[in-house]
């Protein structure tokens, strides 16, 4: 965080709550009631967002919405460019994903490579009826033909900027920070 001391917030706690409520309503609308929806968050912060979305969906539909997590580390296309990363938890809800509408949830959509890896990982777990993508922030700069179905906020950025999502569960507060990239680092998804 030292390098991002000049970062400015673009979304604050109440904004994030409103955005998630809107996305939840959009999911119900597009999925015509959301009875076969399974939410899968991508660790770390996607999982917290997925749980919050599930809570909101349950309020709207008054039905339990299965929520889980999908770790994509082993499916990354840049595995050989870094030391191996510690793995996160993959937790698929009991009824599986076969024939369901899977909504992947992540915090920031950037190059699209994480989502590609997630699609590969899903392939090894089951065959959903359809896969959709919900993200809190879409910052552009796609490197693959991937788009989000539900976007919290479109945030046009330059490659010299960083977008950092902080959530209460992990960081103690809800905010999205836009900052300048430290000069030494290369582009990272």
């Amino acid at each position: 965080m030292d390098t991002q001391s000049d970062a400015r917030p673009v979304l604050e706690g109440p904004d994030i709550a409103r955005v998630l409520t809107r996305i939840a309503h959009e999911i119900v609308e597009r999925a015509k009631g959301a009875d076969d929806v399974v939410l899968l968050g991508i660790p770390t912060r996607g999982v917290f967002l997925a749980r919050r979305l599930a809570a909101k969906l349950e309020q709207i539909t008054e039905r339990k919405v299965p929520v889980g997590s999908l770790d994509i580390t082993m499916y990354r296309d840049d595995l050989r460019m870094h030391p191996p990363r510690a793995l996160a938890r993959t937790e698929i809800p009991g009824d599986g994903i076969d024939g369901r509408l899977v909504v992947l949830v992540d915090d920031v959509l950037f190059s699209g490579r994480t989502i590609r890896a997630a699609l590969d990982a899903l392939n090894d777990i089951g065959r959903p009826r359809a896969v959709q993508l919900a993200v809190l922030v879409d910052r552009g700069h796609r490197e693959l033909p991937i788009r989000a179905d539900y976007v919290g906020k479109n945030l046009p950025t330059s490659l010299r900027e960083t977008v950092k999502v902080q959530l209460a569960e992990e960081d103690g507060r809800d905010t999205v920070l836009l900052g300048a990239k430290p000069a030494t680092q290369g582009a990272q998804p």
Partner: protein
Amino acid sequence: MQRHLISAADLTRDDAVLILDTAEEMARVADRPIKKLPTLRGRTVVNLFFEDSTRTRISFEAAEKRLSADVINFTAKGSSVSKGESLKDTAQTLEAMGVDAVVIRHGASGAPYRLATSGWIDAAVINAGDGTHQHPTQALLDAFTMRRRLVGRDAGLGRDLDGRRITIVGDVLHSRVARSNVDLLHTLGAEVTLVAPPTLLPVGVETWPCEVSYDLDSTLTKSDAVMMLRVQRERMNAAFFPTEREYSRRYGLDGDRMARMPEHAIVMHPGPMVRGMEITAEVADSDRCTVVEQVTNGVSIRMAVLYLLLGGNEPAVTHARTTEEK
């Protein structure tokens, strides 16, 4: 920085916990319909076995295949080794074929170290048991089994075995499993006691980071896990104890002895078991005995080790034992 796994003593506490945590996630792959990950696609791993082994070789092979590595199996029997080829020439042949990792089991203590440090090959070397020296993946899978049973599957994540009392019983002299376990369990904060007849304890055992006892019964009552070792007849060239019957009466685990262990305590065995010698069928078949579980966990641990050594551009396991051990 090293990128080999030669000895359990090379692992720091953080390395060991990282391997155990990674194995916990790898274990979940076994519950999926497609038990395969693409992580080591295009990497070639050779299983170089100069000594007989069933479970270790199959376990490594299963782990390598689940991570999508290309696997080449090499057993000394029926290979050019039986024609007199040296380890160096075998290694250079493998190097010429372009392998990324060598899993080696050898009857001579130090063979994996020689292979890793000689400059003969560029590949990562994983020790799958050398002579009476080390068997690090066995120690890791034992520690993994203990952490799951004694601390808990999810509760154990990120934790070590601080304060757990582990008793290792039997043929310590010939056992690389005992050596590796003493090193690793000590690193993880456990208190290890070795129990064996004096003839089956190695010279210098008093310098190991563990207690030594000749009396099984007094140790059993304060153990969280009891690990029985096989009496390795194939490595014995002298009389180490009078009769088998006397050995199993003093150092074998039967139902009566097991009943005196604390209720939560588990019985472990690295296999293969000799029923009636160090362990009775009653104990081996009880649900406190984790032998089968250890085999399952072995695949997860070996997947974790392979991933952490080969999965990236450099190994995640540091081997630089710079921090003071606990």
